[in-house]
């Protein structure tokens, strides 16, 4: 129990308590919406940088090892898709780094010395990723085959390291530590404690698995949709299987990890756990509420499963779980944000079990038919699995981000203290939505056009350059002409 109290003490930090009494500034809502929107957009691209590149290397390895031209073609096409998505991810990531300063000067000014550090490490990984993505992408048919394959390996490793570094910063906001404060200023930093904070490992493993699930199911979904349209060749089957099997392998592990994460949150982030469980008052024999929301501090609707929350948290029905009441009123999350966290958690868990169901269905069909299932209903489900995985990923981030409110850095910095004092942010938000909608639409359109081109003309389409006719031969670069 002492660990619970330690985390609760952070919530009762006296400096913040005094400031908490002040009201929300008007720019808080648009700033949060802006951040949620841009982060929510960026997070969809992350799995493609982190895991699509790994799928691409799996196909590439198979292609080279077994002289499999179908696998090589898949690797090549996925590399082109990854190139577009990594480019969009790079720019939306850059926007986020601007926003951290523009929207949240309180966070960056007061805690930049600690919070910023993991990003410096991330920058390193990102640099490596950007360099080798280019070499790999442009190296097709130019570099010796295995050397070319190996240039893809740093891409996968750097993307794992980069993701872990960003999550180090994020998890530090959930369980801050490793700093010495004097008059609200960071006067000393213990870097290892900042990086490897209490929430680091579980958040990182949870997110990396999520990335593999999203990328795997999205890839599988594309080929499942193709198979539904009658394209059942080996290319489609192989594309489906590589994506699906990676995601299928990750799903059971993710369920186990997710369960561990929930128990860690129960121990270390009691306020978030109370919101997840929609629990107004401390108690034991806590039921697991499916659905439902909080109105005036009371649970409405929802389907309670008796004792379940207590059992999941501590393996016995008598496990005591702290409720929202235990949080001082001035820093207690609002009913609305508690409801959002709770429902997002339900969606995350629900979609995960949907995906598990799909995997089991696959296993059953495979066992019965001893081959790749072509059951139309299964393929329909598989075609949608990518979207389901994205919904799951987004709701997971809603749980961790909204679940931290009203804190930006738990116990140290309230979101309203972190936000900028600059005027009206709604127009900025509106403009961002329009801009990102355009970029998102553009990305979907070019990817669809690429897919169409591959279907009609195969992979070796001649490059059609800018303008009506091409000035150089397709392969015309300096090297060949020397």
């Amino acid at each position, binding site marked *: 129990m002492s660990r619970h109290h330690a985390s609760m003490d952070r919530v009762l930090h006296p400096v913040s308590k005094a400031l908490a009494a002040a009201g929300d500034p008007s720019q808080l809502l648009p700033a949060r919406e802006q951040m949620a929107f841009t982060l929510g957009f960026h997070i969809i691209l992350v799995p493609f940088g982190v895991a699509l590149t790994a799928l691409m290397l799996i196909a590439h390895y198979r292609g080279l090892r077994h002289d499999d031209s179908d696998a090589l073609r898949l690797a090549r096409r996925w590399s082109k898709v990854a*190139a*577009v998505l*990594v*480019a969009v991810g*790079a*720019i*939306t990531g*850059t*926007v986020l*780094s*601007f926003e951290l*300063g*523009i929207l949240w000067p309180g966070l*960056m*000014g*007061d805690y*930049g*010395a600690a919070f*910023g*550090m993991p*990003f*410096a*490490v991330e*920058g*390193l990984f*990102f*640099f490596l990723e*950007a*360099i080798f*993505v*280019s*070499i790999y*992408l*442009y*190296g*097709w*048919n*130019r570099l010796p085959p295995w050397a070319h394959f190996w240039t893809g390996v740093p891409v996968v490793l750097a993307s794992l390291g980069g993701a872990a570094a960003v999550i180090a910063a994020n998890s530090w906001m959930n369980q801050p530590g490793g700093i010495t404060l004097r008059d609200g200023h*960071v006067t000393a*930093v*213990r870097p290892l404690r900042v990086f490897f904070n209490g929430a680091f490992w579980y958040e990182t493993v949870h997110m990396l698995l999520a990335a593999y699930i999203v990328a795997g199911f999205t890839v599988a979904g594309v080929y499942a949709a193709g198979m539904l349209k009658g394209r059942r060749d080996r290319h489609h089957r192989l594309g489906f299987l590589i994506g699906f099997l990676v995601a299928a392998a990750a799903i059971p592990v993710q369920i186990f990890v997710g369960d561990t994460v929930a128990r860690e949150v129960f121990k270390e982030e009691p306020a978030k756990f109370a919101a997840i469980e929609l629990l107004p008052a401390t108690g034991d024999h806590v039921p697991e509420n499916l659905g439902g929301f909080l109105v005036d501090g009371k649970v409405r609707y929802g389907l309670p499963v008796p004792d379940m929350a207590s059992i999941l948290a501590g393996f016995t029905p008598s496990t005591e779980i702290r409720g929202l009441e235990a949080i001082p009123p001035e820093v207690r999350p609002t009913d609305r944000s508690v409801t959002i966290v709770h429902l997002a958690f339900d969606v995350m868990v629900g979609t995960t079990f949907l995906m598990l169901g799909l995997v089991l269905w696959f296993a059953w069909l495979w066992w019965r038919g001893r081959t790749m299932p072509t059951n139309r209903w299964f393929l329909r489900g598989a075609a949608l699995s990518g979207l389901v995985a994205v919904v799951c990923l987004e709701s997971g981030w809603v749980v961790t981000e909204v679940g931290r409110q009203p804190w930006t850095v738990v116990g140290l910095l309230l979101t309203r203290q972190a936000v900028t*004092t*600059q005027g009206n942010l709604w127009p900025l938000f509106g403009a961002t939505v329009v*801009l990102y909608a355009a*970029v998102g639409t*553009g990305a979907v359109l*070019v990817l669809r*056009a690429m897919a169409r081109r591959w279907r009609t003309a195969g992979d070796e389409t001649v*490059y059609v*350059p*800018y*303008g*009506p006719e091409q*000035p*150089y031969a397709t392969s015309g*670069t*300096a*090297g060949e*002409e*020397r």
Partner: protein
Amino acid sequence: MNLSDVVALVMFVGVVAYALFGGADFGAGFWDLTAGGAERGKNARHLVDLSIGPVWEANHTWLIYCLVMLWSGFPAAFVAITTTLYLPLMFAALGIVLRGAGFAFRKVSVRTPQQRLNGTLFAASSVLTPYCFGSIAGGIASGRVPSGGNGDAVTSWLNPTSVLGGILAVVSCAYLAAFYLATAAHRLHDADLERYFRGRALLAGAVAGVVSIAGIFVLRTDAPRLFHQLSHRGLPLMVLATLCGIVGMAGAHLGRRTGRREIAALAIAAVVVGWGVAQYPFLLGTHLRIHEAAAPDTTLAVLLGVACVAALIILPSLILLFRLSGQGRLRAHI
């Protein structure tokens, strides 16, 4: 020199690298914008595609490097800059989004109208972004960013020094890119295109010269301390920049190829380093010293460690990328 100075230096190396590598990519966008209609400009645009395709993302990363160094190493300065210069920062971010998306999408689109739209976005934002960064540099250098932040949102970047900085940035990028593209055209044995970009190098050099001379008067009235420092401590660098500019233009005129890119890059690097030297030991104008804005020493040590690892891992990787790209070992189109 204490730890914070070393970290500031390491960060500034990133600023110079971004100015040179990112700058050349921005400049390529400038020439893409001004290349004329789809038919007339196709050769120039194709060359831009070939030469920046494999490298732009790595070159863009220098910006991330500078940002993370600034916000972790000097959080107070980062916040002062972002809360004051948020408008040009937002425009720069807009430019970065449109530019990256435009370029990536143009590369994979095959229909002329789509290419034209994406190409225009890429090219126009290649001018917008360096202008914004130049004006931000002008705002910082002329002391318009107060230490506590929240400076004037308008005059901090709409002022003579900022406008000068913005224009100078755009012109410098164009100047650099013209030399790079002339060399790339030479590699492709395209004499017409090489001549085309040599001419543009001369033009950009001439404009840069005029802007710089005008700049002397602007700085003297608008940012006297910066002017004083540039004309004293920074004088050797300004002289070096001028000499390189003259030599580079003479070379372009005579059609010399050896070292022309390097001389152009040296001219730009001298200007940027001159700014750094003139501003030292201040991070913002003449009021926030480097050590005053610095994070605790452990953070600075971590950043220094990151920079050392970067030197060990990133530099060789970058050299590999540029060598492969220069040797034509990377496929032109994907």
